């Protein structure tokens, strides 16, 4: 089972999930409606915010809509990646297909990535749609020069989230019901990240802690790039800060997921739900 022989299997997972998604046509429509509703809600909230209270990003003052759009995008990314990884395992358990997958000559990593790939590919499409609609309706003034550095920073952030997702998936494998805890965790991280409001409005001690939140680091960097037009040099610091966190998160995630999987195999409870 080399990496090369495993790669085509990922396409098989995507094809499977595409077929399944097509059998739930109303689900996709519901997702789009949810995003559009969020846009309307936050645009109305934005009218209540005093523009003078908004922070500066690389010298540029953001509007609330510009500020919160980036926050929502990143928060949605974290939520969806974490949720997807845990959901994939849980869904296979519930549909009774987890054991059928594991008896095939397929690496567990391939099963893990493959089971989430379709929905993870769907995330950027949703976010792009979200940003496109916002840009047209509210006339967002984002710096195109900042798109590439911001994207690289976000890509560097993904392994960190992926590692957390593996831990969540492992926990779901063992404790069965963990998606509620994931939701609570994401809400807490979102609260302390400045996704929906500037960190300066938090109590001083909480704002101090929140500054070390990896999501807050990424959000600040992405806003600097897209709102303030900051370039590679300005984003070097958050990129360097994220690197060890990403390595640690992925390592811990892989170790813990394998640990939980071995435990379930030993106890003979892998297929239980």
């Amino acid at each position: 089972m080399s990496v090369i022989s495993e790669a085509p299997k990922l396409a098989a997972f995507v094809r499977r999930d595409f077929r399944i998604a097509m059998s739930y046509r109303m689900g996709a429509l519901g997702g789009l409606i949810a995003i559009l509703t969020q846009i309307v809600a936050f645009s109305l909230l934005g009218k209540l915010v005093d523009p003078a209270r908004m922070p500066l990003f690389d010298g540029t003052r953001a509007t609330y809509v510009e500020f919160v759009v980036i926050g929502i995008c990143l928060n949605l990314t974290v939520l969806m990646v974490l949720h997807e990884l845990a959901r994939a395992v849980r869904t296979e358990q519930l549909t009774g297909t987890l054991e059928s997958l594991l008896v095939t000559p397929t690496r567990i990593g391939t099963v893990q990535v493959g089971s989430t790939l379709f929905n993870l590919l769907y995330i950027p499409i949703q976010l792009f749609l979200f940003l496109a609609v916002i840009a047209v309706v509210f006339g967002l003034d984002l710096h195109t020069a900042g798109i590439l550095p911001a994207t690289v920073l976000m890509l560097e952030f993904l392994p960190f989230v992926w590692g957390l997702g593996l831990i969540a998936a492992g926990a779901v494998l063992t404790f069965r019901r963990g998606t509620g805890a994931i939701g609570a965790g994401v809400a807490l991280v979102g609260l302390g990240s400045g996704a929906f409001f500037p960190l300066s409005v938090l109590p001083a001690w909480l704002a101090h802690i929140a500054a070390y939140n990896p999501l807050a680091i990424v959000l600040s960097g992405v806003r600097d790039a897209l709102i303030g037009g900051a370039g590679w040099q300005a984003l070097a610091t958050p990129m360097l800060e994220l690197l060890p966190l990403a390595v640690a998160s992925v390592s811990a995630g892989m170790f813990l997921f394998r640990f939980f999987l071995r435990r379930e195999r030993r106890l003979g409870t892998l297929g239980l739900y």
Partner: protein
Amino acid sequence: MLVRDVVCRFADKTALDGVDLAIAPGEIRALLGPNGAGKTTLIRVLSGLVKPQQGTVFTCGRVGLVPSGDRSFYLRISGLENLIFFARLNGLKLRQARSRAQELLEAVGLAEVVNRPVGRCSHGMQKRLAVARALLGDPQVLLVDEATHDLDPEAARRIRELVRGIADQGTAVLWTTQRVEEVPSFADSVTLLLQGVVVFAGSPAELVARAPTDRYLIQVCTRDASGPPQLAAVQLVAGPGTTITPTNDVGYFVLASRNPRGVGLAVARLVNGGFDVISCRQADSEMEEAFLALTGAAA
């Protein structure tokens, strides 16, 4: 397939305790045992889903699994799409996977429902689909966990014929079942598990030889039409060495004798003693008797 001294414990329960098993190419070995005996655990150990604490499992080539559960497919997509997906996980390219899936769907008699979502297929169809999936990787060992458990006789027969055909091509088959009556005409050998321990391993004929009694259902009536035959009268006439047990139906009794000639003697005595013996046939399968005797459930 060779299994040596496999021990498997879950918390304080020993599910398998020193299990030995060998299956030759082309052989169908039935794995019998009451609920909780460890049959499914053994299948899961052999398929790599459960890691035993002790012992060795040696399989010569790929292993195919037909799981016992009802739900092992993606119900929203068709049988063909399910098989294509699993075929690709077995390393086949898309075109090969499609061709292999279609070939197997035809082999299991599901060619006419290839595009039907699995959720709309009958239970028997899903079982046949599970057999087809197990064959995607051309396995040398096929593990079948209660494939006929809740199928109607015709569907069960089709599954058995299918598996027999696969074994005839050289695949070693381990067939777990609760339907002991299907074993004599289907399996080449039998292993009986009880509380995780192998209590019998041999041929179906050797297992039948363990049956303690011959039991026959007889229908009798009184020759003088004086009323329904009474148990005490029938027992008295049948004589010692033969046990007569009443059934819920008037005139029907179960006759059991350890003596090979006991049944004939008892029938002759009943006829000479004023009864007409209208019918006489074997009551339970001998295999079931042997199973019950060996698992201690006969009483």
